[in-house]
């Protein structure tokens, strides 16, 4: 069990109750931004709860919750719209913050005709080029060198865009992590690495991923700063991320941020943590819940009241209900779309295969329709 308070290299602004720690520097974040973050973080919590219930009812094939880790998603908040984000699969807050809607999100989960990725990928593999958010990949770490490539491209094209990439602590064991960090260091790429250290890679605890004391310490070997931050402390997250983004944009190179957090529930809807970890462990972390801490802080600052949060909850519950109802009425993507976007223009062999399948579909008896 990681004792958060005992670690003096950990950047924190708020204590576990959401009070500003003595001597802590509060980042300059406007009331409006804080309200918007709280609103978006609430949406993540509500969405996760609703979608997991749908999954348990057998209405949704697969889902991944982010409960307990939501504050770390808002590392994206200090980015500009032109900056690029390479997400992993557990940063719902980053998507909603950027403007990905409840409808986009739900249509992707159901792979229907309005799904931004046209039903091509299983749930939670979003993509939104209009938001500079890159398509999510299941194999972990592949996005790390890609983000470095985009950061390098921005630099040589004379733009001051920054690329931010998310991954879990388990991913730091991959070759791609090493490769990406190393290229970024050598190239002084304007890139920010967010390692969400949530303690668990499915069933494997962080101790089995590395013998290093911290994940942030790995930055040393790549010639970049490594910062540890309380990933459940929204103010510390915004502060550390903002500093790293500024460094990158100023041409001072990449930063590795280890956001210390905890995966309060299973890896995904297919997981059962009771098999491999002490049920008391999540209870300890629930006391450090990022949404509670933010709520308490905002209450102290006079930015929160119960009615406001009730409105947020009702607003999003209604939006989700409406999006689900709309999704129920939406068809699957047309059969021929299976063959599109493999290449820019469809080559002869795919045209031939498409025509064969369409012929099958036309001659199939109406009773055999799935």
């Amino acid at each position, binding site marked *: 069990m990681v004792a958060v308070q005992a670690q003096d290299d950990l950047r924190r602004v708020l204590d576990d109750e959401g009070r500003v720690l003595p001597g802590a520097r509060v980042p300059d974040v406007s009331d409006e931004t804080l309200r918007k973050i709280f609103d978006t973080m609430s949406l993540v919590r509500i969405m996760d709860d609703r979608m997991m219930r749908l999954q348990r009812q057998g209405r949704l094939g697969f889902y991944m919750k982010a409960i307990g880790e939501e504050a770390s998603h808002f590392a994206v908040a200090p980015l500009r719209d032109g900056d690029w984000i390479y997400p992993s699969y557990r940063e719902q807050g980053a998507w909603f913050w950027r403007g990905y809607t409840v409808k986009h999100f739900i249509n992707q989960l159901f792979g229907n005709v309005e799904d931004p990725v046209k039903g091509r990928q299983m749930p939670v593999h979003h993509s939104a080029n209009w938001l500079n958010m890159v398509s999510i990949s299941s194999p972990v770490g592949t996005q790390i060198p890609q983000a470095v490539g985009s950061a390098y491209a921005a630099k040589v094209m004379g733009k001051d865009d920054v690329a931010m990439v998310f991954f879990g602590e388990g991913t730091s064991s991959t070759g791609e992590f090493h490769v990406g960090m190393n290229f970024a260091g050598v190239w002084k790429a304007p890139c920010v690495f967010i390692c969400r250290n949530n303690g668990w890679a499915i069933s494997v605890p962080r101790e089995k991923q590395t013998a290093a004391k911290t994940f942030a310490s790995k930055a040393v070997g790549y010639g970049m700063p490594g910062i540890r931050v309380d990933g459940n402390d929204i103010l510390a997250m915004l502060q550390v991320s903002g500093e790293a983004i500024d460094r990158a944009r100023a041409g001072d190179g990449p930063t590795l941020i280890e956001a210390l957090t905890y995966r309060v529930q299973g890896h995904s809807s297919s997981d059962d943590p009771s098999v491999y970890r002490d049920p008391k462990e999540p209870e300890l972390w629930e006391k450090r819940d990022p949404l509670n801490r933010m709520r308490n802080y905002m209450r102290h600052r006079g930015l929160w009241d119960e009615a406001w949060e009730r409105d947020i909850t009702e607003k999003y519950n209604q939006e989700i209900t409406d999006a689900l109802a709309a999704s129920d009425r939406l068809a699957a993507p047309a059969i021929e779309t299976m063959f599109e976007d*493999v290449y*820019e223009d469809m080559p002869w062999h795919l045209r031939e295969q498409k025509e064969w399948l369409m012929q099958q579909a036309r001659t199939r008896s109406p009773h055999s329709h799935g």
Partner: protein
Amino acid sequence: MPVMNIIQAVNDALRLQMRAEPKTVVLGEDVGKFGGVFRATSGLHEEFGAERVIDTPLAEAGIIGTAIGMALYGLRPVPEIQFGDFIFPAFDQIVNELAKFRYRSGGQYPCPVVIRTPVGGGIRGGHYHSQSPEALFIHTPGLKVVAPSNPYDAKGLLLACLRQNDPVLFMEPKRIYRASKNDVPEGEYTLEIGKLNVTRPGTQVTLIAWSGMVSIAEEAAQKAEQAGISVEVLDLRSLMPFDIDGLLTSVKKTGRAVIVQEAPRTCGFASELIASIQERAMEHLEAPIMRVCGFDTPFPYTLEHEYMPNADRVLGAIRQTLEW
């Protein structure tokens, strides 16, 4: 019209494209000041600078991974993998990432990366400097695979690859990098990807080859001619997509086909060609389609000339199909 070898033709294509399109960048191991271990990027560093001709750290997954990110952002990267045998650390980045980006993002993220890599044996390079891995990549939906056999084709095909928007594996036949020479026009021209080239017209047997095996096929066709056998040689040029119409036109005319493939026999690209031809031209075939291939062994060092297809083996297969 200047005579060039394949290295010079590739170099010329890269230079012309980098002049015409400032977003084109070259990256890889030793591609900068040194100009690449085969000198294919020679002089580019001097002309275009270190930001566009990038000596990368030594990691293929990083070369392809970063090239993907560059392409998504808007550059036109042309990574070099020093030997085709070294491409496998980047296999996941190519197969799961590069090839699938357009599809998996619902068409949002095209990923125009052209990977250049030398392939094939006959250079006393042993297992790690001789393989022909095309089948693995032809089997990867989303990727195009182009394999020129001579300087003229190499320049025209590379320029074509650099001017379209799909990811390409561009395989260069290293055994004949310098030995293969022909007239190459100055300035820009492109050859259509997906079209084969009839390098030698004939009537009795269709001989199909690509990359370093085209010269072997031509040598065999000459020997056959001396023996009174008329062989039509097809250089596929592009393996994915491949030119089914061109293949069928020839095979329907000759009624017989032999395929020369340097890679191991089982599940090689020849297998797909045989299946595709016989499905569409069974009634025209006078004999089973034969193939002359590498063996299903790792690529050997000392015995590489026993391993590789040669003109005599090809001629044997030509006779076999005629006598069937």
